[in-house]
C-alpha cells in the first residue's frame, strides 16, 4: 500500500500547497518520488519521533497539513505523549501514517508490529482512524483524511488483491450471507475472503469498518446483527481496546436479546517464534486453517443451540 500512498499524497501535494511530508528516516525504495517532488516540503526528521510529532504540530499551527510517515509502532508509541498533548489536545490536522499495522512487518519481529494502534488512537478522541482494505482504498482514504479537519491515523498494510467492491468509506459489505455476520477492520479481511469458498454459499455476511471510532452502528447493519443473532469480529489487533470491545459497548446498549458472539483478535506471540505476516496471522488464528476451524466450530455451536 506504500506505493499507492506515495502516489496519492503526491497528487494531493501537487494541488494543495499546505501538504508537507515528514518521515522518521524511513521510506527507502518507496518515498523517493515524494522527496524528489516536494523539495523543502519533504523533511526527513531523522530517528527522533518525539521531535517529529511536535514539529508536525508546530507546522500545523501555521496552517500546513503535515503527513507523518513511519513504521506503525514507531509512528505512535514513542511519541504518544506528543500525539496526545500537541496534536490531539489542539485538534490539529496532523496525519499519521503507520505502515505495517498488525503483523505487517512480519519477520522483522515484535518491535516492528502494531497490535495496539487502534486502541491507542481510540484513546485520543480527536483522532479518526482509517483502515484501508483494498489497494484502491488508499487513494480514497488519503483524500478523505486530507479533507478531514482534524488529526487522522492511517493504518497501511499489505493490501487485499483485487478490486474493491465499492469506494472506501466507513462501512462496506464485502460478502452477503445468512448464518453469521462478520465485522472486520483492515486487510485481515483478506484471509477471510479467501476462505469463503470453503463454506456453503451465503454463509457469512461480511462488513468492513473503514473509519474508527464508530459513533453508531448503522441501523441496517445493526438489524442484520440482531436478526441473524450471530456476530464474529475479526481484527489484527489485541482484543483490549480493539474492534470487538468497541462494537460490544455499542451493541450492548441496543440489543434486547443475547446474541452469539465470537471475537477473533490477536493474542501476540504464543510460541515466541516469528515468520511472515501470513505466518503470524495463522498462529493467531486470524487466517488460514486455524481461522476456518474457529468459524466452523462457531457455526456448529450456533446451529446446535
Amino acid at each position, binding site marked *: 500500500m506504500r506505493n499507492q500512498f506515495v502516489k496519492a499524497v503526491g497528487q494531493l501535494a501537487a494541488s494543495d500547497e499546505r501538504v508537507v511530508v515528514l518521515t522518521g528516516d524511513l521510506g527507502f525504495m518507496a518515498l523517493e518520488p515524494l522527496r524528489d517532488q516536494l523539495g523543502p516540503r519533504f523533511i526527513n526528521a531523522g530517528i527522533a519521533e*518525539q*521531535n517529529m510529532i*511536535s514539529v508536525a504540530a*508546530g507546522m500545523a499551527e*501555521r*496552517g500546513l497539513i503535515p503527513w507523518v510517515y513511519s513504521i506503525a509502532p514507531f509512528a505512535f508509541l514513542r511519541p504518544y505523549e506528543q500525539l496526545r498533548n500537541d496534536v490531539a489536545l489542539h485538534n490539529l490536522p496532523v496525519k499519521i501514517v503507520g505502515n505495517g499495522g498488525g503483523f505487517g512487518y512480519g519477520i522483522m519481529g515484535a518491535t516492528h508490529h502494531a497490535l495496539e494502534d487502534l486502541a491507542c488512537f481510540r484513546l485520543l478522541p480527536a483522532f479518526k482512524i482509517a483502515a484501508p482494505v483494498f489497494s484502491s482504498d488508499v487513494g480514497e482514504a488519503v483524500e478523505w483524511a486530507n479533507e478531514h479537519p482534524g488529526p487522522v491515523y492511517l493504518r497501511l498494510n499489505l493490501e487485499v488483491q483485487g478490486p474493491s467492491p465499492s469506494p472506501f468509506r466507513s462501512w462496506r459489505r464485502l460478502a452477503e450471507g445468512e448464518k453469521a455476520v462478520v465485522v472486520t477492520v483492515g486487510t485481515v479481511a483478506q484471509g477471510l475472503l479467501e476462505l469463503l469458498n470453503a463454506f456453503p454459499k451465503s454463509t457469512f455476511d461480511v462488513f468492513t469498518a473503514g473509519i474508527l471510532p464508530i459513533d453508531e452502528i448503522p441501523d441496517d447493519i445493526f438489524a442484520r446483527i440482531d436478526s441473524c443473532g450471530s456476530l464474529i469480529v475479526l481484527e489484527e489487533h489485541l482484543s483490549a481496546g480493539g474492534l470487538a470491545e468497541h462494537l460490544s459497548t455499542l451493541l450492548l446498549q441496543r440489543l434486547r436479546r443475547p446474541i452469539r458472539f465470537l471475537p477473533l483478535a490477536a493474542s501476540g506471540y504464543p510460541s515466541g517464534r516469528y515468520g511472515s505476516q501470513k505466518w503470524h496471522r495463522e498462529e493467531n488464528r486470524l487466517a488460514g486453517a486455524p481461522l476456518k476451524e474457529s468459524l466452523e466450530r462457531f457455526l456448529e455451536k450456533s446451529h446446535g443451540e
Partner: protein
Amino acid sequence: MASIKSDINLKLLSQLRGKCASIKRRLLAMHFKANSGHVGASLSCAEILTFVRFGWMGPDDDLVLSKGHAASALYSLLIEAGDLEPAMADSFYGEGTLLAAHPPPGKLPGIPFATGSLGHGLSLAAGMAMGDRLLGEKRRVFCVTSDGELNEGSIWEAALFIAHHRLNNVVWLVDRNGLQGFGRTEEVMGLEPLSEKLSAFGFEVDQANGHDFSALLSLRDRLNNATSGKPTVILCRTTKGLGLGKLEDTVDCHYLPLSQEQHAQALKDLADNEARTNA
C-alpha cells in the same frame, strides 16, 4: 548616534523594570489568592518573559513557554500586554477557570500551545519556525525552557533538528536557576558543562544574568547584528523564587504556596528594588 541609542535603551530599561514589577506584583497576588504552587518557577523567569515580550518580540512573533508550570508569569505578562483581561487574574487556579496551573489549549491570545509536560516546547517552536520558513513568513519564535527540562531527550532531538536545519528564527532562552523538582540540577542529572554541550550541538551560546535587563538588552543588540548563522540559545542565570527571602534558591519554592509573610516579604523586596533603581 550612540547617545541616542543609549537614550532609547535607558527609556526601554525603565519601562521593562516597571512592567516587570507590575507583572511580579500581579503574579504574587494570583498565587497568594489561589494558594498555589510554582511561584518560585514564575519568579525566576519574570524578567526573561518581560524582556522577550516588551524588549524583543515583534508584533508577529510568537512565544512558547515550554516550562509551562510558570504559567502564572505568562498569564500576568499577557494581562500586562493587554492580550488577556485583567479580571482573569482573579480566576487563576479557580473552579471553572480557563487559567489552569499550566497553560491550556484553546487559542488564548499569546498561548499557541498547551505546555506543562516538559520537553515539548522547543520542538513545537521548531515546527512553527519551519512552517514559517516554508510559508515565507519572516518572524521569530521565542522559546523559554527551564534547565531541569533539559533532562528530556526530546529537547536534544529538537536541538539537533534546529541546528541541522539552521532554524535561526528560533530564539531559545534557558531559565538556568539550578533547581528542579526534587533536587538541584547538578545533583539530579548534571547538565554542566552546558554551554559546551549546546555549542557542540551547533548553537551560538550566550550567557546573561537573567534578572538584569541591561545585560539582556545588550545581548539582544549584539545578537540582532550577529551573523554567525547559527541558531541562538541564551543561558539566563537566574534565582528560583527571587524575592522570597529565605525561600530563594530552594526546591520548596517550586511547590509551596505563599504564606502571608512570604507574600509581604516579596512585595517589600520588589518595593526595595524599585527604590534602589530609581535612586
